[in-house]
């Protein structure tokens, strides 16, 4: 029952994070890790990277609250959420969500839940850097839709394939 919440400008190492979720816990039967990357957005041309802003203090609280909600739904062991801030170039890692559990179903579902909630509840904002200037990224309806799948009336959502970023 260990939560690791990190908001930092530095990069992270997925292998180290995986090992921290896996090691010294014989009760663990499954680890699911997700990493999100900065990709070239289609709305603007010539995107070279982005600036990630957040609300210091609230960010950490919001991430802990999201983990607490996941723990109420699934029997989880260790949970890690890492989000980077500051200037990030395309192809860089931006976010990590990792979960360990006795069985894979809980780990898969909880990892997806963490990301769906993070994208609508945690106070981060992306500003794209392009060759012609800076542009704030606007929220997308499909992220709200992904979040809605987990509301009580949709408790066991049928996971559809989607192309949503990170």
């Amino acid at each position: 029952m260990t939560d690791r919440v990190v908001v930092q400008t530095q990069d992270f190492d997925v292998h180290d994070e995986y090992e921290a979720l896996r090691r010294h816990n014989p009760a663990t039967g499954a680890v699911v890790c997700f990493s999100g990357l900065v990709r070239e957005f289609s709305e603007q041309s010539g995107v070279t990277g982005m600036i990630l802003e957040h609300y210091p203090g609230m960010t950490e609280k919001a991430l802990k609250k999201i983990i607490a909600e996941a723990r109420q739904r699934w029997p989880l062991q260790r949970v890690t959420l890492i989000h980077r801030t500051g200037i990030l170039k395309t192809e860089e890692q931006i976010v990590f969500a990792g979960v360990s559990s006795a069985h894979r179903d809980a780990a898969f579902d909880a990892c997806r839940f963490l990301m769906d909630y993070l994208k609508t509840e945690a106070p981060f904002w992306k500003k794209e850097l392009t060759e012609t200037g800076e542009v704030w990224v606007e929220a997308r309806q499909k992220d709200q839709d992904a979040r809605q799948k987990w509301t009580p009336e949709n408790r066991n959502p049928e996971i559809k394939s989607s192309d949503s970023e990170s």
Partner: protein
Amino acid sequence: MQILLFARLRDVCNCATVTLDINNPSPVAAIRTAMQGRFPEHADLFSDSYALVAVNQEMITDDNTLVNATDEIAFFPPVTGG
């Protein structure tokens, strides 16, 4: 009452903190209206269909929520992390 602004809202208003002379306590809806009065050219960005509000670093979903001058109140755009 002090209001914190983040991201696009801070950029368009060109300030990170706004001080409002408003009753104590007031519902969040009254603060929205006051912000729209302060920044009329950006009124749509402060409407309840756009700006999110956090009180003491927790997102609120009800504009009838009462806030005091001692509360930490923040307005910001829909979030885009991840």
